[in-house]
């Protein structure tokens, strides 16, 4: 099952389990009472700057310790060395051992990760190939471009083949071709059963990756789940319902009838779609039932009835504005 849930239940069997996690940075509450459960698949972590994304990711990766609450990765505390086996983290930092080459960096990190020394060179080559750094592996990290260092971080995250990947802004600084490759890589990792939490402001890429989002605002999870749920719960923004019927002649009658309901904010007929009616409402469930009732009473066969989902970009835009 792919998805996220704000309610934590069984810490031992879920890839990521957070319960009432809060974290203070001095006098500033960086994360406030966050409860979250992540299941295999890709989940996007969205929020404006300072919303607590990096704090949450650092907590999940065991770099910070929660002031209250607890975090478990398959039941293991990520702060402990055992927990580090289970999470691969690509942080949003750009500090490296600058005198090392990309290959040196990964080889030494693999040694520290306890990978058998005989297997390290072949494993590192394999990972470098996966992230597209094989041909530049001898380049010193201080001479690498931002995009190359980003890939090196991602290579570091997947080095130990952990079940949970936490990627903080992985698309930052990567060129369009590299982004496409990274999207493909993440989708491939998802299909192999990994749980991936990825934060980004590159919403185009996020849309290609997943429709599951966790939204943070001022250190709180304001929504977790599909983008549509995020929109409903977060923004209190009207949604559009698309209604498609068999007979184009009855569309105006239907529009007039449904407009009389107080829950309906507006209706319009999209250009070039004679059989479709768009209904704007804040309460799609009730309007759904009205539409079904009208169609039965007036014998109007419905071909399609659905909420027109919004893209994460639009939701994010609304979120930031809000």
């Amino acid at each position, binding site marked *: 099952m792919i998805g996220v849930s704000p309610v934590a239940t069984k810490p031992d069997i879920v890839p990521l389990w957070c319960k009432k996690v809060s974290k203070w940075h001095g006098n500033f509450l960086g994360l406030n009472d966050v409860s979250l459960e992540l299941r295999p698949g890709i989940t996007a972590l969205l929020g404006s700057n300072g919303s607590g994304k990096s704090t949450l990711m650092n907590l999940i990766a065991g770099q910070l310790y929660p002031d209250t609450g607890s975090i478990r990765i398959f039941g293991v505390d990520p702060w402990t060395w055992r927990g580090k086996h289970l999470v691969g983290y690509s942080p949003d930092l750009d500090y490296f051992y600058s005198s090392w080459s990309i290959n040196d960096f990964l080889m030494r*990190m693999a040694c*520290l990760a306890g990978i058998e020394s005989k297997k390290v060179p072949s494993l590192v080559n394999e990972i470098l190939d996966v992230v597209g750094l094989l041909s530049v592996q001898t380049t010193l990290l201080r001479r690498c471009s931002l995009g190359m260092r980003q890939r090196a971080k991602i290579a570091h995250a997947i080095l130990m083949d952990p079940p949970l990947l936490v990627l903080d802004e992985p698309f930052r600084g990567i060129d369009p071709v590299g982004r496409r490759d990274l999207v493909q890589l993440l989708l491939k990792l998802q299909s192999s059963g990994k749980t991936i939490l990825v934060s980004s402001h590159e919403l185009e890429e996020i849309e290609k990756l997943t429709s599951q989002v966790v939204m943070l605002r001022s250190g709180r999870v304001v929504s977790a789940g599909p983008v549509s749920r995020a929109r409903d719960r977060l923004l209190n923004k009207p949604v559009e319902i698309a209604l498609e019927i068999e007979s184009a002649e009855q569309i105006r009658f239907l529009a007039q009838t449904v407009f009389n309901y107080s829950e309906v904010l507006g209706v319009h007929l999209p250009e070039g779609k004679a059989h479709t009616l768009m209904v704007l409402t804040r309460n799609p469930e009730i309007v759904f039932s009205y539409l079904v009732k009208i169609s039965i009473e007036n014998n109007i066969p419905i071909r399609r009835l659905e909420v027109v989902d919004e893209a994460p970009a639009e939701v994010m835009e609304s979120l930031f504005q809000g």
Partner: protein
Amino acid sequence: MEFLKSFILGVKSTLAVHLFRAKVGHSLFWVSAGFLLLVAAVVVSVSFKNQWNYKTLKPRGQAGFNFKNSIEMIEAGSMALGHNAGVSAICSAVSGASSGLLIQSGLPVFTKNVVFSVLLGFLLPLWCLTFAVEGLGSEREGKTLFWLFSKPVPRSSIYVGKFLAILPWVIIWSLGGFFVLAVCAGDSGIFAFKLFWQPIALASITYASVFFFMGACLPRASLIALAYAFVVETLLASITYASVFFFMGACLPRASLIALAYAFVVETLLGSMPGSLKQLSVAFYARCIMFQKSSDLGVVLEQGGGYGDFSQTMAICFMLGIALMFLVAGIFFFGKIELRGQR
């Protein structure tokens, strides 16, 4: 058992990765090297004047005369009393023995003026912190500590592995520096080196533990180191204690204050104070061992310093105890470090 395996793996890996990563080009290294050259130059100039003995020192209450003059007077007296064979023989014996003693007095002179004061009081702590503070301090300041913390090994193993990785550098630099000074001083220096290299090595290990702890667990490690090297030892020596503490309290964060308090109050001030206060400094125990070693040869280095109160074994135990205490404290505090504000 699983923890132990992981601990050993962590120590081994950290040691292997970082043993040859010690930075010899950083600013503190050049400060250390500069002070070594400076002191070596002074030692060489003293050696050229052949002054590693008591010849040029003046006996108490005899203004204008030094020991050499006194012996010359005895010899002149012996010549003047040449008609009395017995008195002349006694005078010749006294002057001969005194001359012999003066020639052999290089050990206490070199030890008191170079090893006890300059080396143990300033150079050795500076050399040790050059590498020890950088051990994990550079990782913290360079924000690369994250990469170590993301690995599935206990933090204690990273701490121990890193400590073991810097230790050879500390010992080589400390003993190497001592050897350079000893060679510059000639036979007296080389004799002192042969006699005292063990306590110097032990003191450098203890200092390494203390400064490694500071670098790993206290913020602004370089500030501490530089403050120690320049402010404390060089400049503040001439300022009154009140102004020192006012300056420290006003300008420095709490952690730096603790480090400075240790380096300055414990090591420098207490180390030179009479009574049992000096027993709180690392250098005191190194001096105790040296005192005992030279006493075994019949040379009393410093009367009334209290260095005879501790046996060599006790002094060694104290130094190792201090090293171990800071190692354990470091492991404890290092295990609780959170990496904030990485971006």
